[in-house]
C-alpha cells in the first residue's frame, strides 16, 4: 500500500453538446468541486489538468489554462496527456504530489469540447503514427474495433445481440436518474435493435457518442482532511497506470496487428485484466470487496468484457452476470450506476475523473435515486489509447 489521499470535493459540468469551449466547462466543474470541498481556490497548492487540444494551437493544454481562468494564484501546475486515461493520470499526479509532501491540496480538472462524429487523428501525413495509419490504410474507426471485440465474444462466449442491448437498457435507465448525464431517457431493447448498424454487429445505441463535458476533484493529504474537518471522508487507495506486457496478443486500438507470441509466452492476464489487478494489489482489496464499479463502456459489449477483466465473474460469464441482474442497481455488484458512457458520451480528458466523481458521491451516500445502498468500496476501469492503463479504487 502506498498511502491514501482524501477526496474533499467533486464537481461536474453537465455533459452534452453545448457549443462552448472546454475552458468554460472545466472552470464550472472546478468551481463546483472547490465549493463541494469548502476550499478556497487561493488555498490550493497545485493544479493538475488532463489535456485536450486547443483549437488552432498546435499542442495540448490544460493545467495552466484552468489556473488562468480561475485566477492566477501561483499554484504549482502540471498537465498530462494519456488519451482516455488522461484523467486517471491527472489523479495519479495529484496523488503523487500529496504523498510526497509537494502539495497539501490539489485541484484536478479535465474538460473537453469533443468533435462531432468519429474521432480522427490530427491532420497531416504521419506514417509513423499508428493512429494515422489505421485510418489511412484501413479506415478502421473506433467502432470497428468495438465491432471486432463484440463479434469475437459472440463466437467464443456465445454472447447475443440481446445481451448487448440489455447493457444499454440498464445504463440508460440509470442515466435517466443522473442530472449530469447527457442522455436522460430510458431505452428499450427494441429501440437498440431498430437503430442503424455502425460496425457489425454493433448498432448506434450500442456505441457511445462524443460529448462536451467536464469533471473535477479536490484531493488532499489525510492530515489536511482531518484539520479541515471533513466528516464523510472518501479516500483514494489505488491508482493503476500500468502498461501492457509483451507480447500483447489481443488486437487493440489503434494497432493494425498484435505482437507476435513466437519468442515470449503471453502473460496469463490480458492488458485490461492487468489494469484491474494492479489496482486491487495496490489497494489490498479484491473483486469480492466491491460495492460498485464504473467501467469504460465505449460499447455495450465492452462493458461485458470489463466484468470479466475486473474479476466480477469468470471468463465468458459476463452475459450470465448481466442476465441475473447482478450489475443493475440493487444487484450484487452494480456497474455504471452513473449511466456510464452510454449516458454521458466521451469527453476524453474528463471521463476518468468523472468516474471518480461518481464513486465519491456513491461512497458518501449522496447519489440520490441511483444510490448503491451502503457503498464502501468502488473501482473505476478505463483504458487509454497507445497502452495507458487506468483504474482507481476509492473507499469510505
Amino acid at each position, binding site marked *: 500500500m502506498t498511502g491514501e489521499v482524501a477526496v474533499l470535493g467533486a464537481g461536474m459540468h453537465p455533459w452534452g453538446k453545448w457549443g462552448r469551449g472546454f475552458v468554460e466547462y472545466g472552470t464550472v466543474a472546478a468551481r463546483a468541486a472547490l465549493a463541494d470541498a469548502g476550499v478556497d481556490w487561493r488555498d490550493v497548492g497545485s493544479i493538475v489538468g488532463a489535456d485536450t487540444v486547443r483549437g488552432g494551437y498546435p499542442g495540448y493544454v490544460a493545467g495552466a489554462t484552468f489556473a488562468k481562468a480561475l485566477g492566477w494564484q501561483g499554484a504549482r501546475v502540471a498537465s498530462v496527456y494519456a488519451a482516455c486515461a488522461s484523467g486517471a493520470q491527472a489523479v495519479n499526479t495529484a496523488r503523487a504530489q500529496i504523498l510526497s509532501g509537494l502539495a497539501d491540496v490539489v485541484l484536478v480538472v479535465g474538460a473537453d469540447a469533443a468533435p462531432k*462524429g468519429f474521432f*480522427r487523428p490530427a491532420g497531416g501525413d504521419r506514417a509513423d503514427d499508428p493512429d494515422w495509419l489505421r485510418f489511412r*490504410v*484501413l479506415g478502421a474507426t473506433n467502432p470497428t474495433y468495438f*465491432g*471486432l471485440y463484440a463479434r469475437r465474444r459472440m463466437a467464443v462466449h456465445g454472447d447475443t445481440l440481446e445481451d448487448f442491448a440489455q447493457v444499454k437498457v440498464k445504463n440508460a435507465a440509470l442515466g435517466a436518474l443522473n442530472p449530469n448525464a447527457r442522455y436522460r431517457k430510458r431505452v428499450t431493447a427494441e429501440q437498440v435493435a431498430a437503430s442503424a448498424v455502425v460496425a*457489425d454487429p454493433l448498432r448506434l445505441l450500442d456505441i457511445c457518442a462524443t460529448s462536451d463535458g467536464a469533471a473535477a476533484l479536490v484531493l488532499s493529504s489525510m492530515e489536511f482532511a482531518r484539520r479541515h474537518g471533513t466528516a464523510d471522508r472518501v479516500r483514494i487507495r489505488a491508482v493503476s497506470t500500468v502498461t501492457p506486457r*509483451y507480447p500483447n496478443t489481443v*488486437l487493440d486500438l489503434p494497432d493494425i496487428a498484435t505482437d507476435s507470441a513466437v519468442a515470449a509466452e503471453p502473460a496469463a492476464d490480458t492488458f485490461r485484466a492487468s489494469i484491474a489487478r494492479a489496482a486491487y494489489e495496490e489497494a489490498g482489496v479484491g473483486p469480492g470487496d466491491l460495492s460498485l464499479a464504473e467501467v469504460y463502456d465505449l460499447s455495450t459489449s465492452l462493458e461485458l468484457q470489463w466484468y470479466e477483466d475486473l474479476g466480477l465473474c469468470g471468463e465468458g460469464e459476463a452475459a450470465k452476470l448481466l442476465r441475473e441482474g447482478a450489475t443493475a442497481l440493487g444487484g450484487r455488484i452494480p456497474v455504471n450506476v452513473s449511466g456510464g458512457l452510454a449516458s454521458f458520451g466521451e469527453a476524453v480528458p474528463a471521463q476518468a475523473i468523472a468516474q471518480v466523481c461518481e464513486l465519491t458521491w456513491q461512497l458518501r451516500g449522496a447519489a440520490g435515486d441511483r444510490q448503491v445502498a451502503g457503498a464502501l468500496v468502488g473501482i473505476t476501469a478505463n483504458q487509454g489509447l497507445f497502452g495507458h492503463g487506468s483504474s482507481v479504487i476509492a473507499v469510505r
Partner: protein
Amino acid sequence: MVTGWFTGEGEEFRLLGTRCSACASVFFPREDAFCRNPGCPGGDLEEVPLSRRGRVWSYTDSRYRPPSPYVSDPELEWRPYALIAVELESERLVVLGQTVPGVTVADLAVGMEVEVVPGVLNEDAETTWTTWHWRPTGVTA
C-alpha cells in the same frame, strides 16, 4: 504511402514483416529500429514474408464513411467494406485488413480460413494506392 509492407503479385503476393535474429519475434507492420521484446538482448531485424493464409480471429464492417485520412469520394454513395482480423499460426500474431470487394460480413465466420491477396485502397488520376486484402479461401472473385 507506406513502403515495404507487402511484395509480389498473384500467388506470390505476401505481407512483409521483420524478424529479430536474436529472439525470432516477428513484427508487422515492420519494426526496423529495435526489437520490442523486453527479454531480448537485441538482434538484427531482417525482412521476412508472412504466412499467406490464416484464420479469422474476428470481423466487422464500416457502415458509415470513415473520416480522413481515409480516402473516399464523397460524391459516391458509401459502400461498406468488411474488416477481418486474421490469426497467422506460425507467426503467432493477428493482422487486421479489409476484405476483397464483394465479401461482406454475411460471408464470414470466426475460424474461417482466409488468404492474403493484392488489392487497391484507392486511386485518382495520377496514382493507384495498392494494399492487401483478405479473401476467404476457395473464393476466387
